[in-house]
């Protein structure tokens, strides 16, 4: 019997084996019950993880849900009859639809933003008690886009600024990702593999003294919670 191939089964399912390797692995699987059992395990996990990935992408935020009335009246439609939805959907891919109203609604075919990968609520530390923040991490193929919105932070004192950090609380490892704008918001891009090494977001008040190290004056902090955790 040829050598066991358990570590090549992922490659087989992912299409990463060349012809020669594929033939060799299949020949081995035909005669090895142990590796065939392993193939079942790998296939189950492969399919499940692919399903998890796809579901996360499907959960991308909806286009803006507007509360404004439509200028062009559309046929009213209740929300419940499933088959009616299906027919309407198939017939009019870009249809306008009214919900629960007397006849005004709109389909907005805008592209969806990347799916939400994780969320964090920022709580005040050394800041006014009504200071807070929200972090939304969106996932593109290999980059995480981190949107930070804060409220209640006082304007930074003269020659000071607020800076956003990624934090791993267990080790206190920190990574600066950028300055918070004076409006209290910011958007930052971080490689997914780097983002995965941190589990919290911290905002510090920094002195503009040329020292890039964290000031230890944290004003807001929150744990990043994956949307599928």
């Amino acid at each position, binding site marked *: 019997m040829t050598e066991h191939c358990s570590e090549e089964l992922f490659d087989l399912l992912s299409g990463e084996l060349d012809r020669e390797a594929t033939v060799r692995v299949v020949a081995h699987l035909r005669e090895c019950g142990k590796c065939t059992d392993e193939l079942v395990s790998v296939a189950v*996990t492969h399919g499940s993880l692919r*399903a998890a990935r796809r579901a996360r992408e*499907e959960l991308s935020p909806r286009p803006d849900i507007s509360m404004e009335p439509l200028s062009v009246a559309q046929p009213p439609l209740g929300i419940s009859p499933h088959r009616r*939805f299906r027919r*309407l959907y198939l017939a009019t891919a870009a249809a306008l639809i009214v919900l*629960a*109203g007397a006849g005004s609604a709109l*389909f907005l075919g805008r592209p969806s933003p990347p799916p*939400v990968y994780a969320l964090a609520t920022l709580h005040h530390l050394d800041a006014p008690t009504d200071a807070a923040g929200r972090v939304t991490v969106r996932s593109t193929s290999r980059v995480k886009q981190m949107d930070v919105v804060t409220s209640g932070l006082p304007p930074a004192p003269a020659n000071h600024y607020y800076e956003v950090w990624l934090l791993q609380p267990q080790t206190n490892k920190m990574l600066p990702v950028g300055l918070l704008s004076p409006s209290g918001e910011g958007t930052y891009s971080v490689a997914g593999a780097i983002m995965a090494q941190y589990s919290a977001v911290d905002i510090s008040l920094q002195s503009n003294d040329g020292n890039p190290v964290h000031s230890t004056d944290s004003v807001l902090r929150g744990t990043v919670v994956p949307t599928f955790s």
Partner: protein
Amino acid sequence: MEQIELTSATAPVDELAARLRAGDERALEECYRRHGPLVRSYVGRFVPRDDCEDIVQQTFFELWRSRSRLDPARSVVAFTLGIARNRAIDQLRRRKNVVVDVSQLRDLVGEDGEVFVERLAWAADVRRGLDSLVNEQREALELAYFEDLTQREIADRLGIPIGTVKARMSRGMHHLAERIEKGELR
């Protein structure tokens, strides 16, 4: 040295549903912490932002009130998402002039809506299973399945031999399959 032991493979079946049924308030808190972000993302697809948080709160309130109907053999997240789905539909029925993408509504109402909820729940449970693997295995599988990296790219990224990547992924997939097969992910 490669870590072989899997912390989660021997972990007991999740008892969150049983604890909720027993009236354990900490179980509700844990449920909110674990599933709140998913519920919020799900509801946010269908209802205006102003209504979203209300529905999330209603969902967990109703989860608590209806805890006696929880089946320990069924996924808590599926049950919770089912409540959120009903509340979102109720909310859209009440509101006037709400503008919603019709293709997304298919994911809320009728049979398609039920299937979507089950799919999200399964995805959440799989993700939780992945998170429970030892770090080395979880990291390799995350990079492969959620970051689209090849095994060679994972090896380069982590600074380890590709054989180590293959071994970690193989072990991780084997352990995750065991948990799935035993019905532990719910």
